[in-house]
């Protein structure tokens, strides 16, 4: 085992070795980089601070941690090529809540659609949370504002939505007959019940006007005096 401690313990004199140990401990324990003067003050009298720092830097060169100069001071830092160790990328998979999923589906089929319209279709007031979560998924976007009193924001889906759900285009969303065929709609379907076929045109409809600057900065919904509950 003794052969492996060459770096510091075998160096030069006992005093020099002790100065190195002390410098190492001080630099390690310090919350901020330590200046050469400060180090000199704390090393045993007569120590050659420059030499100590040089030796220490050499001892740590090529190691997982290096002694680096920060402004006029010194500090230990993780070796640059190992910086990736300090980043931890966690991928978290989350499932959408039923309310969010329903809201998403309504936006997909009925776009452009306002929150009030979503609420009318769902029969419950949609929490701002659901819409926010959907905006966060990147699957929906604010399209514009409806040209009606209150100028409510209209929502639509994004290209990421098509990608995630493997849809070539919005017009490929299954219609009434397909939903029935898949057993998703059952029983007597009232006359006049229809499932809209959303257009694939990204351009605003005649009933919509562009978003304001404030909307684009993310303050759009705050202007809507819609109720918030679920």
């Amino acid at each position, binding site marked *: 085992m003794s052969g492996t401690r060459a770096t510091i313990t075998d160096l030069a004199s006992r005093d020099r070795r002790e100065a190195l140990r002390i410098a190492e401990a001080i630099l390690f324990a310090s919350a901020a980089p330590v200046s050469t003067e400060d180090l000199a003050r704390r090393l045993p009298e007569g120590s050659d601070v420059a030499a100590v720092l040089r030796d220490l830097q050499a001892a740590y060169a090529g190691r997982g941690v290096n002694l680096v100069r920060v402004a006029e001071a010194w500090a230990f830092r*993780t070796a640059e090529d190992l910086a990736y160790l300090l980043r931890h990328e*966690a991928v978290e998979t989350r499932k959408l809540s039923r309310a969010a*999923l329903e809201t998403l589906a309504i936006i997909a089929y009925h776009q452009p659609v306002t929150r009030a319209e979503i609420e009318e279709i769902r029969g419950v007031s949609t929490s701002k949370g659901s819409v926010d979560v959907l905006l966060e998924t990147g699957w929906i976007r604010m399209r514009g504002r409806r040209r009606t009193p209150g100028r409510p924001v209209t929502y639509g889906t994004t290209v990421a939505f098509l990608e995630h759900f493997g849809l070539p285009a919005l017009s490929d969303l299954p219609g009434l007959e397909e939903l029935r065929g898949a057993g998703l709609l059952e029983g007597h379907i009232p006359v006049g019940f229809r499932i809209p076929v959303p257009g694939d045109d990204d351009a605003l409809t005649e009933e919509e006007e562009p978003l304001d600057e404030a909307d684009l900065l993310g303050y759009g919904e705050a202007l809507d005096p819609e109720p918030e509950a679920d």
Partner: protein
Amino acid sequence: MTGRDLPFEEDARPPAGEPALIVDVEGFEGPLDLLLTLARNQKVDLARISILALVEQYMAFVEEARKLRLELAADYLVMAAWLAFLKSRLLLPPPEKAGDEPSGEEMAGMLAFRLRRLEAMREAAARLVNRDRLGRDVFARGAPEPVAVSADVRWQASLYDLLAAYATQRQRQMVTRVHVARRTVWSLADAREILTRLVGRLADWVPLEEFLSPYLADPQTLATVRASAFTASLELAREGRLELRQSGAFAPLYLRSGTPRAADPVGEGRGNGKDSDKEGKA
């Protein structure tokens, strides 16, 4: 702590007029601590202390405290009682077969054990405190480089989930509609309640249509209002709370409040033919 003499002679005497002190306050942490201090004063290994001598010293302490009218915490008195019992056990010949009760020697052994254990824990605490402690003697990295966690949330939903959610909620809406339609029906109970209220104490004949006029505005509810009101009126007439009159088929139906227990038991409007006429019209 070690070698301390009984402190109350000098220190604990209460100045005149002041309330009595509790010996506890004088630096002893309970009777066991006091016993340990007294035992140490015997200047022998705790394993070889004289329990009897210890009991005497403790009693003397308590006696002295009493003389000085110091208020002793209850713990001290409980210990004193236990020690008195122990002393009697140690001095008297052991009773013939005392059952499960411990002998004087066992009790003394238990006390000696507790004293040794307390002392051992005091020493352990001292040894613990004197270790090289993190942040005082030994240091961790002063400027740790924290691992930055960048959480990347991936939302998960399948097309099937999406379609099922849409279909379920649209289907729910169909069912809801049926509910709403049902609400437009005037129940018999509703009609009865309204008629009872409207007819009230009406002495004169008034046409039914007039009563119902506020409810007949909506063409969708016209039929149900009329049918329920008519049926309710028949029921009320039978109960004698209402009288009905109609001059001929399709003629207006008149109402007035009933005269309970009136001589005329059959209301004028109770003819079967008229009933069916009315229903036909509704």
